[in-house]
């Protein structure tokens, strides 16, 4: 994966006004991204640069393509036979859809946490250790597992029952276990597709609080149906909508505080004030 190591200056000209300050490093960016499922165009011409060590939230009405966009950041769409991607996703200035790029390596470095907690039918310990084992990790596994569980703020709750099944945990704990599993393979970016929609409000707030700690080490991109969650938890917000052909497009992207206090676009204003959607 030498190609992904190149670290060149990122072109910030694609950023919309009032978006990341040039001093902030871009971790991953979509350029002119379109995704098709067969003949249907799911998203159209997306330009979006996500800033390193920040949380970017993707919001918008159902069907606006935000999950499609997030899944294209680690080539998860490859797993759908009819999916086709146009444009580029630049990760360290390398197009992850370019020739010679190994999608498995992409997914190691750009991890994903899903809507429903999906621990493996294994022990808590093995859930976290699994990814590292598969990747041929040769270090001290106990240290790795403990470190990942601590980062996911789960260690204190599970340290005495590491051999118990991942399924024995509550929904919120299972989701933090999945976050620990994602962290254990040392990704640079963590994608989260509605990570709290199956959780109760307290577990949800706990995950949101966890995100604030995780962003010190990782770049986080989160899809959420919950506008309040985007407002609370993210640093940047991208608002997507559908065009008349039902293809998703990016309406507005900027600092979360600006999007929720003085959006530039009327469509954004209407959506976040509940006047459509």
């Amino acid at each position, binding site marked *: 994966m030498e190609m992904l190591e190149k670290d060149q200056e990122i072109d910030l000209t694609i950023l919309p006004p009032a978006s990341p300050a040039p001093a902030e490093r871009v971790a991953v960016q979509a350029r002119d991204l379109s995704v098709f499922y067969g003949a249907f165009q799911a998203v159209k011409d997306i330009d979006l640069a996500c800033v390193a060590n920040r949380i970017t939230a993707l919001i918008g009405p159902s069907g606006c393509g935000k999950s499609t966009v997030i899944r294209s950041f680690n080539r998860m769409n490859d797993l759908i036979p009819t999916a086709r991607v146009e444009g580029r996703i630049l990760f360290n200035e390398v197009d992850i859809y370019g020739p010679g790029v190994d999608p498995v390596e992409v997914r190691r470095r750009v991890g994903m946490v899903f809507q429903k907690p999906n621990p493996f039918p294994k022990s808590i310990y093995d859930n976290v250790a699994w990814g590292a084992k598969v990747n041929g990790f040769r270090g001290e596994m106990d240290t790795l597992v403990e470190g990942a569980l601590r980062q996911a703020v789960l260690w204190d709750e599970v340290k005495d029952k590491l051999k118990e099944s991942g399924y024995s945990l509550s929904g919120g704990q299972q989701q933090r276990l999945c976050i620990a599993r994602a962290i254990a393979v040392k990704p640079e970016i963590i994608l989260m597709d509605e990570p709290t929609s199956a959780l109760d409000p307290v577990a949800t707030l706990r995950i949101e*609080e966890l995100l604030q700690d995780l962003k010190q080490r990782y770049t986080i991109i989160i899809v959420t149906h919950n506008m309040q969650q985007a*407002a*609370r938890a993210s640093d940047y917000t991208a608002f997507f909508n559908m065009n008349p052909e039902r293809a998703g497009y990016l309406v507005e992207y900027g600092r979360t505080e600006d999007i929720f206090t003085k959006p530039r676009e009327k469509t954004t204003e209407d959506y976040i004030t509940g006047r459509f959607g």
Partner: protein
Amino acid sequence: MTDIRSHFHQELADLEQTLLNVADQAEQMVGMAVDAICIPDMELAARVVALDNQIDRIYLDVHNRWLTLMARQQPMASDLRMMSVLLHLNTTLERMGDQCVNIAKMAQVTYGLPRSDRIIAQIREMGDLVRQMIRTGVEALVRRDIDEARLLPAMDEPVDRLNRNMYREVVECGPDPSLLEWATRMMMVSRALERIGDQVVDIAEQTAFLLTGEMMEFNENGNSGTG
């Protein structure tokens, strides 16, 4: 139980601390403005004006931070009441700064005019009372102490009385036209101090709201009628 919104609560605490610092500054500005009149000292008056510019800048900054917190964090219950109190406090402190400027400007326009020692003494007394009120009002908020907050209306009473008395003092200067210009300006100083006193009572009422969830107007005994 761990605080699962610790980042938000830290931001809320930071915002409160910013305003408590402004309150301390306002208290010092009252002292400086009164000194500017009583000494009299033009330089001190200019410093009050400069400090007020600082308060105005903080006012705008706090307003922006407040708006962002409100939009992003959806505060509830005591957090929501705290947000309401902070918004109120921000406006009140900004106005207190403006009153200090009003006093400082009177020091500038009356510089060199003949003065009355009795009126000077009365203004100094009002200044001391108002400063003590600010200290008590801030302390009540910091300690979340409703009993301390209830002391404020009684502390404001002598300030109101001295303000009413100022009219008579000025009238007594009447026979001496050279004194009258200075004395009538001092009525405005007295009025500014009286207004600051009222604003501190307002802060105390906000503290009571924070602690009880009831919006109330204190009467002079510190008891409340629902506002």
